[in-house]
């Protein structure tokens, strides 16, 4: 048994899992407040990463400025998607809305291939040191940043939904749209806000993952990995999304360890989360924290 490898992998799993949790939160946010299952979540990540990279390399901006510009871009993008594509679909059957988000995903993939090209590109080095040593573990700087960002985003979500006026308004809308309207809350604004927040946070996650690996359309795989996390946590629970994400991240890396040490199948890493997805759907279809009566698709 190679214990240090296991610990290293689990640390990686935790960090990646937090990131999954962040993306899963975005997914749940949209589902909860607008009842839309967003299959294009992964493309949001890729878009954020590409746009940030474009600002850095083509516009010659320093990383921080490019990062801020990306946030602005993603805000506008999120609002635009909601207003142009999803607002006309309010009241349409769930299946139509799902078809539209799948279509959006394919459209965005093609659009990004066209604009940014097919090949993977690396972020220029942002941190001075490649990796730092934390308690005897070799952790990449980008991973550390990822951990810090994930915690910040989660904390931000908590404060936003607990204390801010608009956070409360979003929760009210998720609870009952008509009740929210009777309180003077504009449901349209809440929907646009949900998509904006989701796009911003996904963009940030995309940049982080792009810095760790490299930017290419394969980043969208995170959008698929989010499903096991979300189903595990419960489709309508933000806390569940975070916990589901962390569990999936840990499990993935544990599967990698078991596979590498004993089984040598070579692909357990990718597949393990989906076994969990199937098992969860069989034994606890509403997830760990989900509301029992929500509609399944």
């Amino acid at each position, binding site marked *: 048994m190679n214990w240090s490898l296991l610990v290293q992998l689990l640390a990686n799993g935790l960090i990646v899992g937090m990131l999954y949790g962040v993306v899963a939160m975005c997914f749940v946010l949209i589902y909860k407040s607008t009842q839309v299952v967003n299959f294009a979540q992964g493309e949001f990540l890729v878009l954020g990463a590409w746009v940030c990279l474009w600002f850095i390399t083509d516009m010659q901006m320093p990383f921080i400025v490019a990062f801020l510009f990306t946030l602005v871009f993603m805000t506008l993008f999120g609002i635009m998607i909601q207003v142009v594509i999803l607002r006309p679909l309010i009241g349409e059957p769930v299946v139509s809305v799902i078809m539209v988000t799948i279509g959006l995903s394919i459209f965005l993939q093609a659009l990004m291939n066209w604009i940014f090209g097919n090949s993977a590109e690396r972020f220029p080095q942002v941190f001075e040191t490649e990796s730092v040593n934390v308690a005897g573990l070799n952790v990449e700087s980008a991973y550390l940043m990822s951990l810090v960002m994930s915690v910040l985003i989660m904390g931000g979500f908590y404060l936003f939904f607990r204390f801010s006026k608009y956070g409360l308004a979003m929760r009210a809308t998720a609870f009952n749209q008509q009740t929210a*309207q*009777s309180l003077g809350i504009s449901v349209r604004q809440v929907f646009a806000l949900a998509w904006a927040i989701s796009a911003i946070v996904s963009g940030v996650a995309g940049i982080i993952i792009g810095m760790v690996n490299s930017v290419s359309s394969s980043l969208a795989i995170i959008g698929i990995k989010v499903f096991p996390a979300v189903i595990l946590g419960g489709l309508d629970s933000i806390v569940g999304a975070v916990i589901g994400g962390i569990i999936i991240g840990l499990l993935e890396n544990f599967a990698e360890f078991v596979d590498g040490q004993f089984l040598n199948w070579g692909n357990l890493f990718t597949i393990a989360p989906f076994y969990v997805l199937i098992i969860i759907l069989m034994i606890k279809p509403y997830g760990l924290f989900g509301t029992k009566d929500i509609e399944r698709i």
Partner: protein
Amino acid sequence: MLQTVPASSEKADAPKDTILSVDNIEVVYNEYVLVLRGLSLTVERGSITALLGANGAGKSTTLKAISGLLKSEDGEITRGSITFDGQIISHQEPERTVRSGIFQVMEGRRIIQDMTVLENLKLGAFTRSDGGVKDDIDLVYSYFPRLKERTGLAGYLSGGEQQMLAIGRAMMARPKLILMDEPSMGLSPLLVKEVFGIIKRLNEDFGVTILLVEQNAAMALACARHGYIMENGKIVLDGPAEELRENEDIKEFYLGGSGERKSFKNIKSFKRRKRWL
């Protein structure tokens, strides 16, 4: 046909200060279900006005037409107009109506159950941006001391407490007009009394105008200044509350009979003859 209640003398000479006037509106659900057929009513500023009627008469629809919440139920005002404070609000989005000063306390209280009492109250003040929200929360607590003790989720409150929270939430918006839809629903007689006491106090303390929809006609007419009786999507009778209380037909239909026992046969024929339309 029913003879109308003779207009009282004071109603005739003093011109009323009207805050809300609903003028001959027609409401259609799902593009073909006609619910309100030419309904008109006026609400005097600073008064409590009761809107009474049987189930399905269209009382709740009237309130939703005023507040604009009709749209989320596929309803539409196809004719007539609603004027509030000199502005036409018939086709306004509900959030704008709340901003102009109308707040609806919906039927069944509609508390946000997975939030705390405090969060519910804060949401009541969603449209406000002045600094008085904190003071108003204390004010609501002084009206309903019981709410202050409840720190858990609002879903665990009793029916009466939820009704009080709903009224407190309406106070937080500082509206000019509160549309109250069946505040007595599902409450014990004692609580009903308490809730009506609170409604009266709200009206006296803040001068807020209240349009009250009720099944409990006796209670509603006891605290209202003016009353409207609806049937089949129309106003069939209206007058000062004290006159309505004395009206023989109202006694018969809404206040539980006039006391003397009638044979079943007589009641049947009486109702058939007295059908209001």
